[in-house]
């Protein structure tokens, strides 16, 4: 226990918080190469934090029992978020240098945001949950607007901020209702209080709905998804990469914990909301992405669609659902890391790639890159034998275990629709004849190359040894 004062620094969250400040000072006093050095340090800090999360058994935040909790599910998602953060810092480093955006604050912002996410995932109390969400979001608002001289970046930052503030307000209102009707902010206490009742009263239902709305905004589930395409499009590509990869992990873990811990006995109440969010997200994500010509908007809609599938597993609300969510989230992270690692290294006429149609002729000029993109796209579409298929497969296993037949059929139909736009990217690369060849440059740093190869390896080779991930995710308890 906390008999030694130094032990406190081995709590991952505290370690990360302190190190983030150290990084900030470090960056401030560096004269040259501040951005590069700080990024490297940030990656190092995050790696250490992963080790601490992995090995922490006694000294963890759960000792502050009322605010945070500790479980294998939480640890899994924390490690996932940290890994995503590391990957996105590494793959975006060269991009930032390329567009001459060398503020050393960027990795620091990522660090603080990651800290917020770790707290979000672990939070066991409405208050700590809210503060964690705010810490995470505030860093991201700034990150979205980091390119100050670009109108689109500023616009996306402001848009994100205003809508985020609105959703936080709704979230807080929901919290206050729940607190008012149960008399507690702690998840366990709320659960204990509610276990005496068969039905939620009207106030609590309102509270629940408000909180769901706020959380749906954070995971960008339809109909609270409006900000996602605009923010994705406006923010610099590398920030978009971070948005796509990491915050979703934390938000998904949070929505799972919020539904399954304090309100686990009121499945019927929240499952209807999640059911609607899930179906709407899958279909809107699939249909709206068809019309996109901007690759970032397309990926935004694709991530909305993926959230729909993860929410299917939440509607299933069984052990298989937790397993499915963790496998799906892992595959989602890997696929997004891989696609952004490529996008952040592709230049068309010395500009970073934005329009999908610019991929034309890539299969001639750069066969390996286009093959990689095709594999990622097929995996995202859920075509076997790639990892994306197994994510979807486990989601449907969980849903059918709970006899959600209609939902599963709708899910697979949406996946067929979404296959269309993933295939369209392959079509543009392979089927369309291009007259102007060689305008696409692919330059990738050694570190990003490692990240890219590793994630491609996982996408392709998951099928040969699936048991490792599956055993881990099967053992998770919420």
């Amino acid at each position, binding site marked *: 226990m906390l008999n030694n004062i130094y032990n406190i620094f081995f709590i991952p969250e505290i370690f990360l918080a302190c190190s983030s400040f150290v990084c900030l000072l470090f960056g401030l006093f560096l004269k040259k190469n501040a951005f590069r050095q700080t990024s490297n340090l940030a990656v190092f800090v995050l790696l250490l934090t992963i080790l601490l999360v992995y090995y922490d058994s006694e000294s963890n935040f759960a000792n502050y029992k009322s605010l945070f909790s500790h479980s294998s599910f939480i640890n899994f998602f924390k490690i996932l978020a940290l890994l995503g953060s590391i990957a996105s810092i590494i793959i975006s480093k060269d991009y930032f240098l390329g567009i001459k955006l060398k503020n050393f604050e960027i990795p620091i912002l990522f660090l603080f945001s990651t800290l917020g996410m770790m707290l979000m995932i672990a939070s066991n109390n409405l208050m700590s949950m809210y503060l964690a969400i705010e810490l995470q979001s505030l860093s991201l608002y700034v990150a979205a607007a980091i390119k100050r001289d670009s109108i689109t970046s500023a616009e996306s930052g402001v848009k994100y901020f205003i809508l985020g503030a609105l959703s936080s307000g709704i979230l807080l209102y929901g919290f206050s209702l729940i607190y008012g009707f149960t008399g507690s902010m702690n998840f366990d206490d709320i659960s204990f209080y509610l276990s005496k009742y068969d039905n939620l009263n009207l106030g609590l239902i309102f509270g629940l709905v408000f909180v769901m709305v706020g959380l749906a905004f954070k995971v960008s589930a339809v109909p609270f998804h409006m900000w996602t395409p605009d923010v994705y499009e406006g923010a610099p590509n590398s920030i978009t990469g971070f948005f796509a990869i990491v915050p979703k992990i934390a938000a998904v873990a949070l929505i799972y914990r919020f539904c399954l811990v304090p309100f686990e006995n009121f499945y019927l109440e929240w499952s209807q909301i999640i059911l609607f969010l899930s179906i709407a997200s899958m279909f809107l994500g699939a249909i709206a992405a068809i019309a996109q010509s901007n690759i970032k908007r397309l990926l935004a809609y694709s991530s909305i669609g993926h959230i729909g599938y993860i929410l299917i597993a939440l509607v299933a609300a069984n052990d298989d659902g937790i397993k499915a969510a963790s496998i799906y989230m892992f595959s989602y992270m890997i696929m997004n890391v891989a696609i952004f690692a490529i996008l952040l290294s592709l230049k068309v006429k010395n500009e970073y790639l934005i329009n999908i149609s610019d991929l034309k002729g890539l*299969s001639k000029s750069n066969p390996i890159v286009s093959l990689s993109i095709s594999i990622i796209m097929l995996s995202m579409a859920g*075509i076997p034998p790639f990892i994306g298929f197994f994510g979807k497969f486990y989601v449907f296993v969980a849903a059918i275990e709970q006899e959600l037949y209609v939902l599963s059929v709708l899910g697979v*139909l949406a996946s067929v629709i979404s296959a*269309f736009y993933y*295939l369209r990217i392959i079509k543009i690369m392979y089927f369309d004849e291009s007259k102007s060849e060689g305008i696409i440059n692919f330059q990738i740093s050694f570190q990003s190359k490692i990240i890219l190869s590793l994630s491609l390896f996982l996408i392709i080779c998951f099928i040969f040894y699936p048991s490792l991930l599956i055993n881990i995710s099967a053992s998770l308890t919420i």
Partner: protein
Amino acid sequence: MIDWPLVSVIIFLPLIGALIILFIKEDELTSINIKWAALLATLGTFILSLILWLQFDYSNPSYQYEEKFRWFDDFNFFYHVGVDGISLFMILLSTFLTPLCILASWNNIKKRVKEYMLSFLFLETVMIGMFASIDILLFYIFFEAVLIPMYLIIGIWGGNRRIYASFKFFLYTLLGSVLMLIAIIVMYRNTSSMSIEFLQGNYFSYNTQLFLWLAFFASFAVKIPMWPFHTWLPDAHVEAPTAGSVILAGVLLKMGGYGFIRFSLGMLPEATEFFIPLIMTLSIVAIVYTSLVALAQTDIKKLIAYSSVAHMGIVTIGIFLVNQQGLEGAMMQMISHGLVSAALFLCVGVIYDRMHTREIEFYGGLVQRMPLYATVFMIFMLGSVGLPGTSGFIGEFLVIVGAFKFSSYVVIGAAFGIILSAVYMLYLYKRIIFGTITNNKLADILDINTREKIILIPLAISVILLGIFPNLFLDPMRLSLELIITNYEIANAK
């Protein structure tokens, strides 16, 4: 018996070939080294699959050469492959046709030869893997993975409307197969098993069977294809390169028939009994309607594509008669159609390579310049019509004999289709081959060369062999089919 993993070697040998091709440097001008590597890999696979046949135990109705490894720790999902009488010839068909496809594309594929050969080798692996799977999820993984190389083959090396055709092919078949995924999960939930062998023991309640049957029907009816789900097929055939059409007609359509026998008949007998009238109606409509449509075609490939739908109608009738003659006839018809339609597409490829058009009107009087071509074309044309002595006859005859036990209306429908098939095939042959050369461009057309002889003559021999010694093929599959029929009758007698 053989104590090394023969089936796995056959499945993965093409993939290993593909990996080797991936790492050899392409010869800039001719890509000759890539072509030879692909040809050797596929020929090796074919020779190994012949061992499968030679060592096959005819007296064993269940799976042979089984290999089983646990794959997923949390699931009863195994890497479980093996061969029985039903899958044996499907595997042989795949391994036989793929080297011919590689040879057929020897000169006419000029761009991206490396990717082309990679696609074909990957395709061969997944086709064989699919027929050899004894685990449904493994089957499903291969079944859907087939879409990836086929999508690329149609989309990259196809004709003018290739993009439309490739998307239609992919999305249509994907829509069918995802419903099968749901059905597979439901089956697993009810029985905790994914073994095809185990699931053939009839474990589902009647209502569950109906839904499962519809889900499987969605995927196989699109694949085989049955009217009215056939519209992707003419597009895909016309736009695909010659070798793509060959594999599509020769093997991919059989995936549907194979699935019907294994899943619908084998696992869902009571639901099958319920849906037999539906299948019979659709099949007869398919036979008559698509034959008439074929008659009106002006494009040779499209005509053969529609004739495929009609022939597959005979197959579905044979399968759902669920008696010995019907099933044997359906299997023979599938093998025969695999050879004959593949050969017909290759024949079309021969003249397309020379003249770059597939319009029937363009040709006429080819017999004057291409006597050898006219001869082999005639063998395949007669095989397609079902003349005695060719493979097509055995299948159609057995199906009609079986159909008499079921209903004479079905017999009338099927026989009418066979007559129509004679009409459109003979009419096609007359227009292309007979007469005098009216089109001046055809004056210098050359007869088939050595490479084309190597491709077409084995096919012609096997079509005749199948017609004269059908027992060579019927004996190995007989017991496996009997097993399915017995299970079916036991389930429905309850």
